[in-house]
């Protein structure tokens, strides 16, 4: 479980996060949604410590992270898997080396076991026989999937995904969502997914946090989104045609 308290972040004179609190639970996907530029990625980076919040606390279990010393930070980070918005694959390494990387630096697994694990993860994201390709040789969607494989390879207890299915076709998107859901439930880990895809929201939105201009305006699950009573959230949800039709049918 991850708990955040009153996270604030300002870049220059631009207030991006204006005090966000919330809880991300174990064993189900937690979604952060909101339109482009509202600070979703920044919030995610504050949680994993890539951006230092100006104010606020982040708890991993019962351990506070933002003020932790270097050793505790490293200890927590070694249980984190993260998929970045752009994939962030190491461009000088092959697909296989990318996915194996966390195992190389974080574990003492023997070579053949590592390879098995890598192939297993690549197969789970639907990328068999691409092991020796370089990131520049595969498509953007494939890079994303390699990124997911790299994030889950070490069986981390915390999984963060920044827009895992942007740039993917609807079918692959659903596969990725299902994969995230499966992994989360199967290993009982804490998963935080940033997205603005209504499909994902409806598919795996067990615990949704809606951000708007640096504030958290709404919280709930996928069954409650139709009647949230928050205007900004309705605007976001019903920007989607299908959602508008659904609303009418109700």
């Amino acid at each position: 479980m991850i708990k955040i308290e009153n996270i604030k972040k300002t870049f220059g004179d631009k207030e991006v996060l204006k005090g966000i609190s919330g809880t991300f639970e174990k064993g189900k996907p937690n979604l952060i949604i909101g339109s482009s530029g509202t600070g979703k990625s920044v919030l995610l980076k504050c949680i994993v410590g890539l951006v230092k919040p100006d104010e606020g606390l982040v708890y991993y279990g019962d351990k506070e992270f933002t003020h932790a010393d270097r050793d505790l930070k490293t200890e927590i980070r070694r249980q984190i898997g993260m998929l970045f918005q752009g994939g962030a694959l190491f461009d000088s390494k092959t697909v296989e080396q990318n996915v194996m990387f966390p195992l190389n630096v974080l574990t003492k697994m023997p070579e053949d076991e590592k390879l098995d694990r890598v192939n297993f993860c690549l197969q789970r994201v639907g990328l068999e026989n691409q092991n020796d390709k370089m990131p520049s040789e595969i498509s953007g969607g494939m890079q994303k999937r390699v990124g997911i494989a790299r994030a889950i390879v070490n069986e981390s207890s915390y999984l963060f995904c920044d827009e895992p299915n942007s740039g993917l076709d609807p079918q692959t998107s659903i596969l990725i969502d299902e994969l995230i859901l499966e992994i989360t439930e199967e290993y009982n880990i804490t998963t935080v997914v940033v997205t603005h895809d209504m499909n994902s929201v409806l598919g795996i939105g067990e615990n949704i946090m809606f951000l708007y201009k640096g504030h958290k305006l709404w919280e709930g699950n996928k069954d409650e989104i139709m009647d949230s009573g928050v205007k900004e959230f309705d605007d976001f949800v019903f920007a989607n045609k299908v959602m508008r039709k659904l609303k009418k049918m109700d």
Partner: protein
Amino acid sequence: MESLGKYFIFLGSLFVNRETFKTYFKLTIDECVSIGIGSIFLVSLVSFFMGAVTTIQTAYNLINPLIPDYVISLVVRDMTILELAPTIIGVIFAGKVGSSMASGLGTMRISEQIDALEVMGINSASYLVLPKILGTVLMYPMLVILAGLLAMAGGYLAGVLTEVITATEYVYGMRFDFNEYTVTFALIKSFVFAFLVASISSYKGYYTTGGAVEVGQSSTAAVTQSVIAILLADYLLAQLLL
């Protein structure tokens, strides 16, 4: 001034929270290979011609019949060892290796590869930069030695082919009144220059923010600042050690 402070903090951060020795060993070897192979052709080419041109021009300037011909190769030798090989090649090296280091790290920064390392609990500065500095400090002195030898060979060929000096006199001049300390001095210089180029370029690349344009800017700034640092250090070392 502030960025100088940040530069020293950056250098300090390379030595905390490191990975295993084995990891660094492998990475350093990789860097050595890429630095060596990447710059050997350019360094050889430049130094060979530098030696040749220096010989011809020195001969052209020494027309006084009282000065024996072997002085030509003696001048070539001392200029090569003291200044041409370590410093001029250093400037070229900064352009070649420094810019690629800065743009490589800059690209890793803007495409979040550095963030990806940090999230895994790896000290990205140390993991990425320390092998680059070690590799450069190991390889550059070797390149300087090679450059020195090639420059003298280039001088020999140019001198003998254009008949401004005979082979025997060239070799005589090369050996005449040779002071081994100049070689030591050249090696000290190359260690210092290598460290400066690698650390400044890495620093510039590592702290890139923005996008592709900024990567280009970091890479240019890396070369400019490395060259300035080399020239300053060159002057200081000459004052201190000669």
